[in-house]
């Protein structure tokens, strides 16, 4: 009797376990099914191409954005950017003042030299001090020095981050004791992405939910991090490749001798040829258009080897459009030359973006969503 009872209890316990296991298996199956409906988007591109900014924008647009704690989390990054910027500018001015041409205009005024040296030292540390009002004031004084301004103009020769001007002009606000970064500040904040970050979101259309669920992955961009991307390549619906078109006169962070545009070109080619992307849609974001617009009228496109056959046709807005079309055509040419003939039915679209402009990113993403949805309908045979 006793043994019967205990066996029953044992059976009961056994069946409970079975139930649990069954439940877990059911959950796994459900989630795997759900996974299949999640469209994976992979953000690729060279370092500094704006991938992370796009990532942040998506977070701001289609998720709950950043709460106060997250915003405040960016303060050290922003302050670091400031120290890095001023160090690059100061060291840069010293370097340029030793070159042969116009060296005098890069010489820092005597009263600012001490400040300069101080920040050159701080900028080289592993840990930066908190940005106080006094420090901010000193940085501002240095920033206003004409030698630094002249150096800023030659920023493309140094590794000056794009956020330089924005942060330098907002030093007062950024050094407030109770400073909470704005969304814009966060978008400008520059930190090198290591590893992989992902977010899941659903683009909210006019009728609230469009139904599509996307998972966006952002990976590190510098050369030494590319091996980390490989395991992500499987099953991706679309690659969003970011290319900063304003970089045609800049060199790599990791390698001062390589032109950034050429690096982007090589990377794009490499990505296009990957066998795992046979059926993947390619969405090319020609990013940093706002910087491109300003630069193209001052720095001719043909300083970059890839663009050496460029001929300007006019001035002003027309010239900007013409230059942009030229760059666009170069990428198109590259795409069709690198794509194997059997891949010619892949979706390939080019978008003009300025990752920092939230409205534009939203518009762009709506177009991306439309294209991907049409593609799905097409593949399901419904179009």
């Amino acid at each position, binding site marked *: 009797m006793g043994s019967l009872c205990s066996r029953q209890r044992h059976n009961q316990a056994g069946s409970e376990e079975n139930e649990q296991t069954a439940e877990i298996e059911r959950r796994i199956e459900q989630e795997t099914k759900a996974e299949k409906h999640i469209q994976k988007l992979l953000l690729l591109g060279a370092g500094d191409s704006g991938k992370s900014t796009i990532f942040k924008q998506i977070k701001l647009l289609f998720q709950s954005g950043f709460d106060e704690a997250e915003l405040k989390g960016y303060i050290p990054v922003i302050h670091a950017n400031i120290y890095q910027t001023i160090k690059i500018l100061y060291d840069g001015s010293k370097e340029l003042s030793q070159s042969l041409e116009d060296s005098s205009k890069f010489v820092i005024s005597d009263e600012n030299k001490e400040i300069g040296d101080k920040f050159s030292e701080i900028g080289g540390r592993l840990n930066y001090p908190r940005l106080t009002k006094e420090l901010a004031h000193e940085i501002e004084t240095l920033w206003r020095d004409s030698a630094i301004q002249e150096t800023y103009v030659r920023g493309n020769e140094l590794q000056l981050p794009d956020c330089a001007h924005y942060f330098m002009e907002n030093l007062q606000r950024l050094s407030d004791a109770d400073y909470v970064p704005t969304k814009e500040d966060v978008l400008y904040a520059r930190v090198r992405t290591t590893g992989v970050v992902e977010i899941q979101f659903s683009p909210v259309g*006019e009728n609230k939910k469009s139904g599509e669920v996307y998972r966006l992955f952002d990976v590190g961009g510098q050369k030494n991090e590319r091996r980390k991307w490989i395991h992500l390549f499987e099953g991706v619906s679309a690659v969003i490749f970011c290319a900063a078109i304003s970089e045609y006169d800049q060199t790599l962070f990791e390698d001062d001798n390589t032109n950034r545009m050429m690096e982007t070109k090589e990377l794009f080619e490499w990505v296009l040829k990957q066998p795992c992307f046979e059926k993947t849609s390619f969405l090319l974001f020609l990013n940093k258009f706002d910087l491109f617009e300003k630069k193209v009228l001052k720095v001719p496109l043909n300083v970059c080897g890839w663009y050496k056959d460029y001929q300007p046709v006019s001035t002003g807005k027309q010239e900007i*459009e*013409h230059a942009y*079309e030229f760059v*666009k*055509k170069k990428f*198109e*040419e590259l*795409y*069709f*030359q690198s794509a194997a*003939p059997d891949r*010619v*039915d892949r*979706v*390939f*679209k*080019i*978008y*003009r973006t300025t990752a920092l402009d939230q409205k534009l990113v939203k*518009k*762009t993403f*709506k*177009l991306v969503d*439309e*294209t991907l949805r*049409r593609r799905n309908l097409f593949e399901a045979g419904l*179009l």
Partner: protein
Amino acid sequence: MIEELNLGEVPSVFICPISLEPMQDPVTLCTGQTYERSNIMKWFSLGHYTCPTTMQELWDDTVTPNTTLHHLTYTWFSQKYVQMKKRSEDAQGRASELLGNLKKVKGQARIQTLKELQRVVANHSTARKTVVDEGGVALLSSLLGPFTSYSVGSEVVAILVNLSLSSESKMSLMQPAKVSSVVDVLNEGSIETKINCVRLIETLMEEKDFRTEVVSSHSLLVALMRLVRDKRHPNGHLPGLGLLRSISALKEVRGLIVSIGAIPQLLGLIPVLNPECVEIALFVLDVLSTVPEGKQALKDCSNTIPTMVKLLMRITECCTDYALSILWSVCKLSPEECSLTAVDAGLAAKLLLVIQSGCSPVLKQRAAELLKLCSLNYSDTIFMSKCKLTRTIQ
């Protein structure tokens, strides 16, 4: 009036049994059947004295005007005409209203407005004029740009294609960003939309100040070739090939067309195209053979020669002309190699056929020259045997 109306449902009693057209002067025979006067009089003049529908012999050759039917016909058509006129005016009003809306709305509302405008414009020529007169073209053109969604772009193209565009509006549409959005729609669209895009681009190409760079685009050419190759939608072949022909006429773009692999694709298509399309495809291949890359690509393609040989004397004289020209280009490029292949494919017999046919003298001359070129590598006897001439000689 009858011609202006475009009706499918004319009541059968108004239709003449002989011509199947509405009767304008109905007359009744003694059998009670009614016909159009001129038609039945013609029937009589040919010597018949029967009623065409009942086959009865007529006992009385008088024809009586059927005034009742005439009156009814006239009334029915007049009513229809008035209705049409009213709808047309309504359409004009509606078109005007829709244009006004278009200036104000965005998002889904914009798409719906465009869809309705497209329907109105497609069905009423008066509406088309209204749209053009009220600056609709500029408005629609302004909707095309780097941020144009597919839904908007496809409707805009569908509307523009129905309107007569001024020189100025065509120049405006040639702006790179606008052309890009049309090309995007061409890439992504349904077959009807693709055909619309093709037609729109053709219209732009007719403009005298047309700039070649507008069509000098990988994306456009690849999209066009995709349309031409689409086996599921053969109705796209002719428009696609037509545009390809227009583009290939521009010298500067020929290299680009070759570089996207158009030549092997066209060659592969020829067996499945209808004769009209084959002629255009051959025209394009012929034009492409005038550039070095084209000649090379034709030579590199293993089925160029067999396909061309097969086409000689098969379809139209034009096709034979193009095929000959292509064969000539390829054989001239590497005579030994190609004449071998050509002769093996039965070229000689075909050429003799051309020479002996009723084709133009120029064509015969070409055929003779090609025959000579191919025979250079053989001794007479071997060549003869290769030609399989026995049947022809017979």
